[in-house]
């Protein structure tokens, strides 16, 4: 008991230091989450709020656009995260032990798209792919190569969005992997060299296992980021054609701000929150394990 009391007295400065942050956390994160859960149980219009239990969730699961949005979001998460991790591992493991200037160049080259606003990137892609007056369809028509509407063909629109998002995000993962690989103890590589290990063996038996924490971090962070994918959808396809590229976040935005269906939008928010929470558990577990 005394020990606990002393320990608290000892830490009181620390608690005071985190108090402002805690306050902001409660106001801007905890309260909106609770309010979002509450709103998801109501039908809200300008004049009143009516408690309807789980009706909003029932409506959601019987809405084909919501189902389509969920499937699309899962497809985006799986493909974008997998592509990002595989490509970033490939690039980082190929260059991390090369000349420092060369590594800096590679890092810079891949990181530039990360620094450019997603809005700007989406507009540039739109300029390139617009079927009526975009550059790529125009050149393709002139050269009589192909006539595909990359943004309007249901079979092409998902791969295009996956590629655009992947190309914009992968720089971050490459930077993290290179930093992590540079940190791997040199003795391990020297020992592998002495044992006559090939480059592939070094990558698969040493580098990949040693950068596992970075991989977990990149996977979790990318999953959370891709779950919230919005700008590229809004600016490139508007969720089309025929909702083929709608995502959960875009569906939420439409309901909240265009249709004024705050109850439905809150229910989508709660579902997204739960998905993110479940997906974050592996990372939280590794963090607690470390401690």
């Amino acid at each position, binding site marked *: 008991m005394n020990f606990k009391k002393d320990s608290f007295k000892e830490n009181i400065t620390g608690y005071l230091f985190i108090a402002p942050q805690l306050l902001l956390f409660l106001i801007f994160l905890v309260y909106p989450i609770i309010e979002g859960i509450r709103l998801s149980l109501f039908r809200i219009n300008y004049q009143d709020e009516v408690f309807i239990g789980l009706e909003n969730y029932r409506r959601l699961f019987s809405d084909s656009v919501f189902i389509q949005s969920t499937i699309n979001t899962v497809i985006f998460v799986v493909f974008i995260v997998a592509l990002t991790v595989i490509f970033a591992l490939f690039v980082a493991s190929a260059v991390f032990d090369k000349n420092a200037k060369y590594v800096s160049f590679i890092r810079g080259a891949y990181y530039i798209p990360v620094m450019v606003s997603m809005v700007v990137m989406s507009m540039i892609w739109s300029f390139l792919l617009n079927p009526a007056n975009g550059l790529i369809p125009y050149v393709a028509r002139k050269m009589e190569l192909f006539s595909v509407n990359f943004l309007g063909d249901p079979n092409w629109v998902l791969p295009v969005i996956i590629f655009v998002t992947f190309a914009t995000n992968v720089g971050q993962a490459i930077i993290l992997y290179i930093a992590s690989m540079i940190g791997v103890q040199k003795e391990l590589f020297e020992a592998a060299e002495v044992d006559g290990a090939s480059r592939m063996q070094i990558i698969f038996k040493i580098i990949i296992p040693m950068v596992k924490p970075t991989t977990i971090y990149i996977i979790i962070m990318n999953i959370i980021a891709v779950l919230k994918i919005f700008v590229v959808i809004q600016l490139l396809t508007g969720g089309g*054609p025929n909702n083929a590229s709608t995502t959960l976040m875009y569906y939420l935005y439409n309901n909240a701000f265009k249709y004024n269906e705050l109850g439905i939008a809150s229910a989508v928010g709660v579902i997204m929150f739960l998905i993110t929470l479940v997906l974050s558990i592996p990372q939280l577990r590794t963090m607690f394990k470390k401690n």
Partner: protein
Amino acid sequence: MFKKRFLAVIVFMLVLSVLTGCFGKESSKSNGSSGSNDEVEINVWLTPQWKGVLDASEEGADYDSFFKHAAEEFSAEYKEHKVKINVEVVAGDQRDELLNVNLNGGTPPDIFFESVFAMGDYAHRGALVPLNDIVDDEARSDIAQGYWDNVTFGDDVYFYPFSHNPGTLTYNADMFKAAGLDEYIGDEYEIKTWTLEDYEKILKGLKENLPTDKYSNAYPMGLFALNNQGDTWNLAYLRMFGNKFFDNDGNLIIDDAKGAQAANWLKKIYDDGLTNPGAESVSSNDVNAMFQNQQLAISFTNAILLNNAKADMESGKAPKFDMRLANIPSASGDPLTFTYVTGAAVFDTKDETRIKVSKDFVKFVSTDPELVKASKNGVPIRTSVVEEFEAEKPYFAAYSANDPYMFNFTGNVPGYSQLRQVLYPELQALYTGQKNGEEAMKSYQEKGNKIIEDSKANSVIYKN
């Protein structure tokens, strides 16, 4: 133990402060205020309409010039209160987002000036107050009944009509001449009416005979379905074979042979290469830009877009060509025509004084003989103003000649904003071949009627 208690106290205080911050709303939540010193402050929002008080050529002309000028005059004249009027221009595509956020936060503007079709839902939701008490007989006789029908929801007038903006087709007469289609070109200030057979001949003639050296990468007609922007033209195309769109109860009836025929006609001209490619992912803005760059021979327009396009040509921003107007054709031979009525609405801010001042301001703006002249920037809604400017604006007579063929594209149904969101995905499915005309119209009708049904249940107008 002490630690637990201390933490509990801290957490309790924090939660209390959060709740105090969130629920301790001031008695008056709204942006403006009517208060102690008898000064009443009201907020006027508008989307970009026209620049200047009466004309864009005025020095420093901007979208808020008219309302700022009107506010000054009103404040000087108004006897009942000292009035401060704040004018704010909001982007048209952010209108619903801004209004929804402010309505839910209890801070709506006092007055919103906008096209009625985009604002009708707010009347159904009970967010607007009726304006019957500020409409007098003089206004009723000067403004045609058709426009009053446009702004009446249930039994009440919710918007004071100011001007209107008729939608038509526009064509590049130079491209017509280059394709040998001189016989179909109307007079300079005529809104040409073609039969559907003529129209099909024109599209084919443009595709086959337009010289590619002069007009490379050009297509006969603009078609778009990326989003809901410009969807009124798509609604008009769906009426081409005589479908009435809404029944007397305000439900969609597009799922019949005539509706499907219209949808299939659109798909056919698209497949035949008579329109720009990729309609499913092209917006009306793209189409408008393509027309201005002479990549399309026929496109959509309205009175304001026409003025802007001509101004762009004059200033050298866009290539100059002979731009003329035509009606949307129909199988019956009668033109299809619609208009966007613009006017001011007053929001229910729950503050009687502000609502009274807002209504008085709306009446002042909509009836003052000098201020109503500004409606010439679109097409005036008042017969008296049309007559005054007829000689100066030759299109006014042509627009008036279209009046008998006008249809009310919203049907004033509740949930119209949401209804717009379910049309373009069906058109996208049509153009990408996922659905045929029958399937697309059936699906649109099912989804649309569900929205209308839900919105009726929440509509204060249908409840009363």
